[in-house]
């Protein structure tokens, strides 16, 4: 089965790897804190419009207002408050999607890898089929036909992004299914569910954690793309993708309206990927396939 998992090559010196991991953790932690308490601490409301104060520039530009650190959008809503609220949406989508897709993918992968034979054939077929489905198009179609909403976006992405979980869970389960400690547990009379949950799962968990970071980054990027195309999180919720879409008409004269949410998105995804890379180096699981 050929499929494009970004093959990882461990960073060359562990010092560089650890530095990347630390930076990644710091970025993700900072954005998580902003998502959790940002809107409680900020005096501005992300939803209140102020049409007299439309498209005010951020603090580093001329004409900025002290009350709006990152300026205001085309409806005069405070950009910083919207950005903080958008962090909440991105992280929520990322985490919920990983939980949903992880549940599906890990179940399929572990079953296929453990039992082999017909079960494995069926799992492989499911993975092959899933990979041939154009994700963005189908996600757009589902949201377009059923109406936009946070829950629907999570459900759609969760049902689409389980393939890598399944591939990795299957491969790692195959590697360990006949190791001594699994056989020992079997001889001791452990039931199959016990073997799967208590013996197999904990021993492949580190590999799955790496996949989880990759999928979380992917889900966040996909949600932003869907919202950007108008078929994701519905307005007035400030998803970062939606903020970029709303700012698009003004970008040639006020480029910061797309720079602020775009850079935030980039930094968050970079942070998550750095954490994933660092985890992989620390766990020494350089070959995921």
């Amino acid at each position, binding site marked *: 089965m050929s499929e494009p998992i970004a093959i990882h090559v461990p960073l060359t010196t562990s010092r560089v790897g650890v530095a990347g991991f630390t930076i990644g953790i710091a970025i993700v932690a900072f954005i998580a804190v902003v998502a959790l308490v940002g809107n409680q601490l900020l005096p501005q409301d992300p939803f209140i419009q102020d049409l007299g104060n439309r498209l005010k520039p951020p603090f580093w530009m001329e004409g900025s207002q002290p009350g709006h650190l990152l300026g205001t959008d085309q409806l005069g809503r405070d950009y910083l408050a919207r950005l903080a609220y958008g962090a909440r949406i991105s992280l929520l989508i990322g985490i919920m999607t990983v939980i949903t897709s992880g549940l599906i993918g890990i179940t399929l992968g572990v079953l296929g890898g453990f039992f082999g034979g017909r079960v494995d054939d069926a799992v492989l077929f499911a993975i*092959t089929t899933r990979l041939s*489905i154009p994700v963005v198009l*189908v996600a757009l179609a589902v949201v377009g036909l059923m109406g936009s909403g946070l829950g629907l976006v999570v459900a759609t992405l969760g049902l689409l992004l389980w393939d890598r979980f399944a591939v990795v869970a299957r491969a790692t389960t195959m590697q360990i299914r006949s190791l001594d400690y699994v056989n020992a547990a079997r001889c001791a009379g452990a039931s199959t569910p016990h073997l799967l949950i208590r013996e197999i799962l904990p021993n492949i968990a580190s590999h799955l954690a790496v996949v989880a970071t990759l999928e979380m980054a992917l889900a966040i990027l996909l949600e*932003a793309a869907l919202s950007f195309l108008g078929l994701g999180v519905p307005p007035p919720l400030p998803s970062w993708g939606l903020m*970029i879409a709303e700012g698009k008409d003004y970008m040639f004269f006020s480029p910061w309206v797309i720079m602020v949410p775009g850079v935030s998105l980039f930094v968050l995804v970079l942070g998550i990927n750095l954490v994933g890379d660092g985890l992989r180096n620390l766990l020494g699981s350089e070959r995921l396939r």
Partner: protein
Amino acid sequence: MVYLIARRLALGLLVAFTVMTLAFMLTRLSGDLAISIAGPAATQADVEIVRKAYGLDRPLYIQFFTWVGRAMIGDFGQSYFFKDSVANLIGRRLPITLTLGLVGLSLALIISIPLGILAALRENTWIDRGVTMFTMVGQAIPSFWFALILMIVLGLHFGVLPISGTGTWQHFVMPGIVLAFTAIPALTRLTRSGMIEAMASDYIRTARAKGLSRARIVLKHALRNAAIPVVSIAAVQLGFMLGGSIVIETVFALHGVGYLGWESIAKNDFPVVQAVVLVLAAIYIGLTLLADILNALLDPRLRTG
């Protein structure tokens, strides 16, 4: 070899049929299609007329097999919005998407293979780390945002490229660059790891001992082995790129299949949506098949499997 191809072909057909089923179910998600086609101003009688006219009054399984039967011979029905056959619509748009995909893939290969080789040969230096950094950045940039940045920089500030539309070859440059960036990180990392592995192998030591030139060792012996996974992933990546081009085509108003898909979703034009999903999936299936065959040709060890 023949057995390998036959088996892969059978699997591909089975997958294609499953995707057809899913695509059909997908468009039935919205509930009563007749109501959404007839529009908000329609009376109950109008809805019934629409239902009859489009065959939506028949049982689902009959609708499904009628659709599958016709799709087999290239008849995807009529578009509700464009008043044209779906096959015609897709036929006209497909060359644009394929051109974009090939431009993107070529750019991606031109950039990522030399970068990957360079990083591998200079392993553990700042060049290597720079390349790794570059792939991390490439992975984290949202493609639609990158597209907008390019529009501002290349389209507005330098004014060298058109911002949107389909007219000339210049219209494919910016979308091609953006699409290439979706594949560059994976291809670069793959080339790098493949080259590192190849350079450390016994046959390279033999080649060195024979006194072959460094260029010959790298390009002829190491690259040929490192290229095996790259070729297969490149074909598969092209499939992913065509599927993902929907975002890029929409941003640049490039009227390819992806843009058509987006338009039809917005207009509830479900025969077109079904067909676009199917066509993109079929292309992907075809490309993975091609990748497996190419692999078998490049690597004699795989021919027996």
